[in-house]
Structures are given as structure tokens and as C-alpha cells.
């Protein structure tokens, strides 16, 4: 179906709109990029700064760095990495992993990060979302939510999906939006690492409940999965790691295919 046919002029106008974003995610441990299947069995996929430059050149719209070792290790290497990335690349990037205070955020933003992503610390101390939004603005506060289905309910999990909480995905998403989050990064633990596609039903439901951008994460295996995340899941951005790191999907080809499917992208 092509609504533009016969309405070239109208189409010209409606096509001027916000592009859907493609976001490679770089999981960082000890200053190196890693990506595991279902968050275990980590594999080494390279130097983060070098990868950031490559992705930026290939047309990534944004990058996310998640320091998965942050809760156990010192943060100095992360700050140094943020600085090196900001020095080299000219697209926005988000940093997450073990961020638990206003001071943590301040040092990352001051060193060139555009946004920070908080996860466990937001669950433990929801007021942190309000504090960050107030001090730095909603635009730099991403709340990451990892959830999986238990008895048909989407339950929020912590520590890389190992620890279940009492929180329901949808209730929690509404709350974080009300508290001032500027964006939600939703990872389906059921889909993550499976390469069977994103959790589009849950994504679409989130989109009806909250009015801030949603990043789809977990499950990307082929180009069609990205198309579906935007068309069925109504996501504003789609994030993936291994399909990009191991060159199974090339970003430029992906974006060309999205455009063929009438999805606005920056090419």
C-alpha cells in the first residue's frame, strides 16, 4: 500500500517528519564492547571508540553505551571512554549502567554524553528521575526497563534480567514518564538474544499509554524485524547490538529497506 500514489504534493509535506532512529548498542565491560546471548556467555566485539566511529560513519542515528560491569567496578574508565567518544563522533550518544546519583550523571554529561540511561537505580529510588529531569532536563533522562513475561504478565527485572521486581512494565512506564523521563528504552528479556524479532505487542501497548519516545530493544535478527518494530510496535527507535557488531545487518542497507517500506529514516 502506498498512500502517496497520486498525492505527490501531499506526500511531499507529510514526509517531512521526524525520522525513526537506528541505534547500535555497545555493551561495555572493562572498556571493551561485549554482547551476550540472553546476557550470558559474553563475546568480545571490539574497541568502543573505534566501533562508535564506524557506526557514526555508516549512518547510525545515535549510540547507546551500557556499562554492564558498572555495579561491580570503578567508573573512571567509563568517564574516559565517554570523553574519547565525544571527541571523535558527531552524533548523540547515551550512557548507562550503574548510574545511581545526580553526581554520576553530572560527570558523564560534563564529559560529553548527551543522555544517561538509568535502570535499577530508578526502581530503587524513583525520585532520582524527578531530580535528574529537574536539574538537567527531561531530554537527557532515559529510563531503561528490562521486562519479561511471567504468567502472562510483563514483569520488570533488575540486574540484567536476573532479579524480578513487583513492578508491572506498563504501570512502571507510566510512572517514569510522569516523573519526567524523556525516553524509555524497553528491553524484552524474552526476546533479547533470540533474533526472533522485537516484542511488538508490548511496544505498541506502551505507545498508547505514554507520550514520550520509546526505544525498542531485544530480539533483532533481520531487517524485517526492524520494519515490524516501527509498523507494528510503533517504536520511535530500534536498538540492537550483535546483528550490527557481527555485521549481519549493515545500517545503510537497513535504512534503505526501511525507506522502501515508507518508514522515514535519515539517509
Amino acid at each position: 500500500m502506498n498512500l502517496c500514489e497520486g498525492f505527490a504534493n501531499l506526500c511531499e509535506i507529510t514526509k517531512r517528519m521526524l525520522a525513526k532512529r537506528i541505534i547500535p548498542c555497545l555493551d561495555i565491560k572493562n572498556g571493551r564492547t561485549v554482547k551476550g546471548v540472553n546476557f550470558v556467555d559474553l563475546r568480545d566485539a571490539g574497541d568502543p571508540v573505534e566501533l562508535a566511529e564506524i557506526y557514526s560513519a555508516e549512518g547510525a542515528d545515535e549510540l547507546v553505551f551500557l556499562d554492564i560491569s558498572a555495579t561491580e567496578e570503578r567508573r573512571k574508565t567509563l568517564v574516559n571512554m565517554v570523553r574519547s567518544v565525544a571527541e571523535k563522533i558527531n552524533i548523540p550518544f547515551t550512557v548507562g549502567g550503574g548510574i545511581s546519583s545526580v553526581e554520576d550523571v553530572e560527570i558523564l554529561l560534563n564529559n560529553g554524553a548527551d543522555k544517561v540511561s538509568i535502570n535499577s537505580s530508578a526502581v530503587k529510588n524513583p525520585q532520582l528521575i524527578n531530580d535528574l529531569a529537574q536539574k538537567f532536563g527531561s531530554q537527557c533522562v532515559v529510563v531503561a526497563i528490562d521486562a519479561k513475561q511471567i504468567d502472562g504478565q510483563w514483569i520488570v527485572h533488575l540486574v540484567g534480567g536476573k532479579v524480578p521486581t513487583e513492578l508491572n512494565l506498563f504501570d512502571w512506564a507510566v510512572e517514569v514518564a510522569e516523573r519526567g523521563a524523556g525516553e524509555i528504552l524497553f528491553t524484552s528479556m524474552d526476546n533479547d538474544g533470540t533474533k526472533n524479532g522485537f516484542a511488538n505487542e508490548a511496544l505498541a501497548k506502551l505507545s498508547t499509554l505514554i507520550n514520550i519516545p520509546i526505544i525498542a530493544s531485544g530480539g533483532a535478527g533481520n531487517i524485517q524485524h526492524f520494519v515490524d518494530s516501527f509498523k507494528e510496535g510503533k517504536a520511535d527507535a530500534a536498538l540492537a547490538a550483535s546483528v550490527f557488531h557481527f555485521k549481519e545487518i549493515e545500517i545503510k542497507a537497513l535504512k534503505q529497506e526501511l525507506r522502501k517500506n515508507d518508514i522515514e529514516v535519515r539517509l
Partner: protein
Amino acid sequence: MKIVIINYGAGNIQSIMFAIERLGFKAVLSNNPEEIQAADKVIFPGVGEASYAMKKLKASGLDTLIPNLKQPVFGICLGMQLMCNKTEEGNTEGLGIFDVDVIKFSNKVKVPQMGWNQIYDLKTDLFKGVSEKEFMYLVHSFYAPKCAEAIAVTNYEVEYASALQKDNFYGTQFHPEKSGDVGEKILGNFLKM
């Protein structure tokens, strides 16, 4: 050439510093009135909340200094919004350089607008060598409506001014320092003025 980035404790200044370095220049951070006045180019950044940022400007007397600058001045994002008459964000009086009031997007669209959108109807040398409909990176909940001083337009729910110019003052709602090579070109165009 002396480039000063006005330092009033607002936002991600490091990225602008790095972008200027990539263009082969050096910038200094300053809130010293004499140093700002002596600069060849002044960059007025801003990320965060308007009333808080305006309070910071007033505390250091920069609110009266900036509108009287004679060299090229470039406001980015919140910097541009603060150069307008006023903004709905925190009901804040602006610097009154651009004759337009900043208002909030309605809830018919996702707020903030976050990501890459096109700029078109480009005017002035700020966009020299830049094609119509290039994508720029934007993150904002408030916007300046289309007006006489608009030098670029973007469409998000409504067509609005994504860049403004009056005399020696320029402002962009988008982040040139985060908008890829084309963004860097726009920043470079400003530095060449």
C-alpha cells in the same frame, strides 16, 4: 580567531568544544564579560530548563551583556529559545533578541521531539552549501513558531522556526555539534562569518 562559549553552568558544553576542535579551531569557556566582549565569535549554548538557565544568566549579568554584543553570536537549542521574547517553559522572560514567543508542543505528538528531522526554507550564509531537507538532531519540548526572523523551518505537528537570525544574532533549535557532518558544516559556516 577567538571563540568564546558562554559558560553559565548549562548543559553539555564539552560536545561543542570538541566539534569546534574537529573544525580546526579552539574555543574557550568563559562567563567573564570582558572576555566575551573581546571575542570574535560567541557561542551561547544551553541544555536544560529555561527558568533555571535564565536565573543563572541574570546572576552573572549576562542577560544584559548578550543582547548588546556586536560580533556574530550563535545560540544553540535552549540558547536560541532564551534569545526570544519569552518562553512558556517556567514562564520565563527571554533576552528579547528574536521577536517571537516560545511555546510548548501539544500532546498530539510525542514530547520531547527527540531525533533527526529535516530543515528547509533555508536562508542566510549559515546554511551555505547545505541542501534543503537535510536531517538535523533535535531534542526539545518547546519551539519558536514560524516568524519573520525564521531562517530554517522544521515540521513536527506544526511548521516551526528551527533557526532564527536577526542582525549579528543566529540561533538554531537543532544541535549542529550533534548533527553529523552537515551539522559541523553549519557550525563551520558560523565560525567563518
